[in-house]
């Protein structure tokens, strides 16, 4: 019985990340778009996002690459651009509060990075999933 009560609470806790108003609006837009594209869509998923973020693909350069190739496994730490060696500030908002505050910037990096790793743009569901993973990962 206790589990029944706790389960929804846990789910809420997972997605309770405190986006600012412009990001909240963006997440809502992604949700609506995802519903349109997939009638079974029932919310963004941390585990699907983790899969998107950590799985390997033949990227734009024709070599195996994953999001973690540049951002690392610990998102609270600096990453490193594998092409140029330039330091990338932590992706996790817990370590770097500027992250996921500007929709324009979020859109830009999702567009670029999906193309670099997946050689295509991400779907609304994929974008929402991967954001959900990044902002909630401990």
């Amino acid at each position, binding site marked *: 019985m206790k589990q029944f009560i706790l389960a929804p609470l846990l789910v809420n806790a997972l997605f309770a990340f405190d986006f600012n108003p412009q990001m909240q609006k963006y997440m809502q837009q992604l949700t609506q778009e995802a519903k349109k594209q997939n009638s079974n869509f029932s919310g963004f998923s941390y585990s699907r996002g983790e899969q998107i973020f950590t799985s390997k693909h033949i990227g734009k350069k024709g070599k195996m690459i994953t999001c973690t190739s540049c951002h690392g496994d610990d998102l609270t730490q600096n990453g490193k*651009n594998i*092409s*140029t*060696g330039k330091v990338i500030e932590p992706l996790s908002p817990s370590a770097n509060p500027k992250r996921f505050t500007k929709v*324009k910037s979020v859109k*830009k990096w999702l567009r*670029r990075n999906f*193309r*670099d790793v997946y050689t295509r743009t991400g779907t609304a569901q994929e974008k929402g999933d991967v954001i959900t993973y990044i902002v909630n990962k401990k």
Partner: protein
Amino acid sequence: MKKIFVLLLVAGSLVYGDGWFEEGFSFGAKKAGVKPVDNKLYIEECGSCHFAYQPGLLPERSWKKLMANLEDHFQTDASLEEQDRKTLLAYLIKNSADKAHQYKRSKKIDRSIPSSQTPIAITQTPYFKHEHYEIPKRFIIQKEVRSLANCAACHTKADKGLYSESFIAIPNYGRWDDD
């Protein structure tokens, strides 16, 4: 005595025109060989992935070509919103090497490129190649450097537009002297 010293200095600067005097002095501070970057958007957008190369390192035609294909920017997607792309292109053109001959490096780079060519990599310009061909490969491929495109790895004041020998420190090696 003072006069002799000054004379010697002047003579030194003439003889070693390409040595430590090469970027020239103005009121005691070194004058940049290339105009330093002075655009916040440029630093934010271009400098987030790589060293913010000064616009004066390539001529206008090169920047136009490069900025027309940001979706495939050295095999990486560096696409921008159109408004930002236009703003940055205008900044690059305004400060490009062919319009910055008052800066020594810009002039040399610009003059070294045959008019029939439009390189999009600074490392492919004849002047750059000439200045770097003697550097042993082991210094370049080491993890602290990785590529000749990584200016600031060895040029300690690259961000100030100062590329003279006196501001070179190659990781795991040190100063670099041409002589």
